C-alpha cells in the first residue's frame, strides 16, 4: 500500500509502542480522550480516507481512534498495525493536545475476529463508538454489540436499505445490547428537522400542522434514504398512517384525509427543498445550490407571513460526525421513523 498510516508496530506491543511515542514526544504534548472511536471498513484505501477524517475531527473531539481495514473473505490470516498521533496547538504556551490512532489491516481469520482486535486496544473506562462502514450481515452477533455504546453507520450508502434497516432494528431489539443507534443520515437531516420544527413555533401555524395535505421534498442524487427518513419522521410525529406505499407514497391523517407525498431528485444539498401545504397555508424550506443557509417561510390566509434564515451546516462527513459525537444522547424518534420507512417497502 502507498499510504502508510503511521509507525508500523507489532500487534502484540501496541500499548508499549504508544507509551514510547509519548515519551519521545516531550512534555509539551497532552493526551486527551473522550471516547474510543473504532471504524470498520472493508474497502481498500479506507485507512487513508478514515485517517483524514480523524485528523479533521480530533482537534475538536479528542479520542483514541482505532481504524480497521478488513478483508474477511481472504484466505489465511494476516494482521498489520500502525500507530500515530494527531496533535493540535492549544493555548498561548505552545503546548499541543494529541489524540492517538491505531490502524489495523486485517485479512482472513484475523478480520473475522474483530472483537479480539478492537476490544484489546480500547482506552479503558471510555465509551466505545463503533462506526460500521460496511454492510451489516446476518446473523446479528449480540456478543459484539453488547460492548458497543454507540453504533454509527450511514444509511445513505446502503445498496439494499430495506434489508439493512431490518438488521438495524434487530440490533436495536437485542436484549443484551445497550447500544445507541446513530445513523449519520439521521444526523444529516437534523438541521432540516430543526428548521422545519421552528416554523411551527410561530403562533397560528401549529393548527395547520394537523391539516397538511401535501408534502413535496427535493433530494440530491444518493440521498433518497435521507428524504425517506424525513417522511418517516413527519408521518410518525403527525400520526399519519400509510395508505399507498409507492415511490410517491400517500398517507392518511387521524381524520382520514389523504396526504400526498412527492419526492423528487434534484441537484443541490441532500435536502434542498421542502414544501408542506394545507388548504390555507404553505410552509417552505429552501437551501439554494451552494448556499450555507436555510430559508424558511410561512404564508397563509390566517397566519402572519414570516421568513427566517438559519445557518446550514456543511454536509461533509466530518461535520456530521462531529455534530453527532457532540450531541450525544439517544435517538428514540429514529427507530420510529425507520418503522415508517420500512413500511414503504412492505
Amino acid at each position: 500500500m502507498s499510504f502508510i498510516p503511521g509507525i508500523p508496530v507489532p500487534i502484540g506491543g501496541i500499548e508499549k509502542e504508544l507509551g514510547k511515542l509519548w515519551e519521545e514526544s516531550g512534555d509539551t504534548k497532552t493526551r486527551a480522550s473522550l471516547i474510543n472511536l473504532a471504524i470498520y471498513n472493508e474497502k481498500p484505501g479506507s485507512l487513508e480516507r478514515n485517517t483524514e477524517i480523524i485528523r479533521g475531527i480530533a482537534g475538536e473531539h479528542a479520542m483514541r481512534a482505532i481504524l480497521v481495514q478488513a478483508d474477511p473473505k481472504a484466505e489465511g490470516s494476516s494482521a498489520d498495525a500502525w500507530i500515530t498521533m494527531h496533535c493540535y496547538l492549544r493555548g498561548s504556551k505552545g503546548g499541543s493536545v494529541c489524540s492517538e490512532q491505531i490502524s489495523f489491516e486485517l485479512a482472513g481469520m484475523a478480520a473475522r475476529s474483530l472483537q479480539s482486535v478492537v476490544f484489546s486496544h480500547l482506552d479503558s473506562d471510555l465509551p466505545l463508538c463503533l462506526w460500521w462502514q460496511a454492510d451489516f450481515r446476518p446473523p446479528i452477533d449480540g456478543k459484539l454489540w453488547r460492548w458497543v455504546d454507540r453504533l454509527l453507520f450511514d444509511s445513505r450508502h446502503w445498496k439494499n436499505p430495506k434489508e439493512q434497516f431490518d438488521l438495524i432494528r434487530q440490533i436495536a431489539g437485542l436484549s443484551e445490547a445497550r447500544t445507541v443507534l446513530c445513523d449519520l443520515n439521521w444526523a444529516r437531516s437534523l438541521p432540516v428537522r430543526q428548521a422545519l420544527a421552528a416554523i411551527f413555533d410561530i403562533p397560528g401555524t401549529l393548527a395547520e400542522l394537523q391539516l397538511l395535505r401535501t408534502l413535496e421534498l427535493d433530494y440530491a442524487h444518493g440521498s433518497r434514504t435521507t428524504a425517506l427518513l424525513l417522511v418517516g419522521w413527519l408521518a410518525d410525529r403527525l400520526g399519519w398512517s400509510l395508505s399507498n406505499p409507492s415511490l410517491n407514497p400517500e398517507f392518511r391523517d387521524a381524520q382520514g384525509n389523504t396526504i400526498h407525498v412527492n419526492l423528487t431528485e434534484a441537484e443541490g444539498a441532500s435536502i434542498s427543498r421542502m414544501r408542506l401545504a394545507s388548504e390555507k397555508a404553505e410552509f417552505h424550506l429552501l437551501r439554494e445550490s451552494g448556499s450555507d443557509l436555510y430559508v424558511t417561510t410561512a404564508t397563509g390566509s390566517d397566519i402572519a407571513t414570516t421568513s427566517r434564515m438559519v445557518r446550514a451546516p456543511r454536509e461533509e462527513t466530518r461535520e456530521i460526525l462531529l455534530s453527532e459525537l457532540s450531541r450525544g444522547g439517544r435517538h428514540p424518534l429514529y427507530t420510529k421513523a425507520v418503522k415508517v420507512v420500512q413500511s414503504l417497502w412492505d
Partner: protein
Amino acid sequence: MPTPLVNPLREGIANRLSPEPCTLVIFGATGDLTHRKLIPALYNLAAEGALPPALTIIGFARREKTSEQFRKELEESTRKFSRTPLNEELWAQFASSIIYHQSPFDEAEGYTSLSKQMKEADEKHGTGGNRLYYLAVAPDQFPVILSHLRESGLSTATPGSWARVIVEKPFGKDLKSAQLLNTLVSEVFPECDTYRIDHYLGKETAQNIMVMRFANSIFESLWDSNHISHVQITAVEPLGVEGRAGYYDTSGAMRDMIQNHLLQLLTLTAMEPPTSLSADAIRDEKVKVLRSLRPLRGDDVFKHVVRAQYTAGLINGQPVPGYREADGVPKDSTTETYVALQVNIDNWRWAGVPFFIRTAKRMPKGGTEIAITFKSVPRVLFNQTGEGLDENVLVIRIQPDEGVSLRMSAKMPGSSLRIEPVKMDFHYGTSFGKATPEAYERLLLDAMSGDATLFARRDEVEEAWAFVDGIEEAWKTRSDDLAFHTAGSWGPAEAADLAARHGVTWRRM
C-alpha cells in the same frame, strides 16, 4: 380539530425549553453592553436557529438616529465582537427585526409610541403579545423606566402572553437601595417575571460546578468539614479601571465583584443538593448558604477583611499608573481595588472551614477559580512530621483555560522514597475543542424560555447585600486600614497575614 398544545416536531430536537416568540425591548440600546454583548449574542443565536421564529428587537434610547443608522452601528460592532464571523445575508435577515425607538426615558409619549410599535410587530411578525424588557441602563434610570412601563400598561401581559424584565447589575449599591429597587421592580413585575442577570452564572464552568458536585459520587462524599481544610475563591485581572472610573470609584471591588459574582460562586460551591433542578429549588439552597454566612461587622471586619489599592507598577513589563492616577479617580480616593476576606459558613456541613475570597485589579495575571484544599493525611507513615506532603487540592477554573485539576502526591521513580505533588488536569478546551457560547447567549435564551435558574432571585441579592453592608459600614468608620500594593504584585502583605493566621497561603495562579 383542536390545535395541539405543543409542537410535535419539537420532540427530540433540543433538550431545553423552547424560547417563545416575543418583542425584546432594550433600554439603553446605544450603550456598550448592547453593542458588545447583547446584539452579538442575539445574532449568534439567530444564526444557529436558536431564537424564537418571531422576534422583534426594539432599541430604546435617547439619542437621535434612524433605525437604519442604528442597524449600521450594530452591524459594525457585531462584526467586531461576535464570536462567529458575520454572514451578510444572515445579518440582513436578523437586522430586519431590529427597530430603533428614540425617546427620553422620562417621556410618557415615548412609551405610548413604543406600545403602538409593539402591537404592530405582533400583527406583522406574530410575536404574540410577549414582551421582554432589558434594562441595560444605569440603575438611576430604573425608576423612571419602570414607572412609565407600568403607567403605560406595558408591564401587564395580555391574557395568554407574558411580560418579563431583565435587570442588569448592579442591583443597588447596598441593602437599602437593593430593597428599594426590588420593591420598585416588584410593583411593576412579579418576581417570577424578574430576571436579574449575573453573567458569571451563564458561564459554562459556573454551570459545571453543580454537575461536578452532584453528578460525581467521589466529590460530594468528601465535600464537608470532615475532609476539607479550606476553600479559596479568586477572581483577579491585570486590567485597571479602563474608563469605568466614574462608576468604579463609587462602587469598589467589594460591590463590583464580591457582592454578586464571587458570592454566587461561593453559594454554588457550598450549597446543599437541591431537591430538583427547578429554578427555585436551586435558588432556595443558594439562599440558605448566604443566610449561613457569619456576619462581619465592626471590629471583626478589620480582622477578617483586607482592602487595598494598587499603586503604579509594571504589568507584563509595561509601566502602568496607580489607581489614584487614573483618569476620573480622585487623588485621595479610598476606594478599594483589592479585597481579600475570610468568611465562615455556620452550618453543619461547613462548620470550622474557612472560605477565603479574593478579587483585585492590576494583578500579574487574570483568572477566576475555586480551589478546594483537602485536609492533610494523618501524621503517620509518609507524613510523620506533618510538613512533608502537599495537601490534595481540587481547582475549578472558571476562566480562562476552563477546567478542573486535582493535585495529589506520588512517589518519584527511584530506589529512595521521595514523594512529589502531581497534577491531574482536565481542560475544557482540550477535550471539547468547540467554542463555548457566550454567557449572554444562554441567559437571553433562558429569559425568552421562562427559565430563571441562572438568574439571581430577590432574596439572594438582598442576603448578599446584607452581608456586604456590614463590611461597608465598618469601612466608613475609618480608612487607615486601606493597604497599598504595587500594580503587578499579588497584593498587600496584610492579605498574606490574613491567610497566614489560618495557616494558609494564597494560591499563586
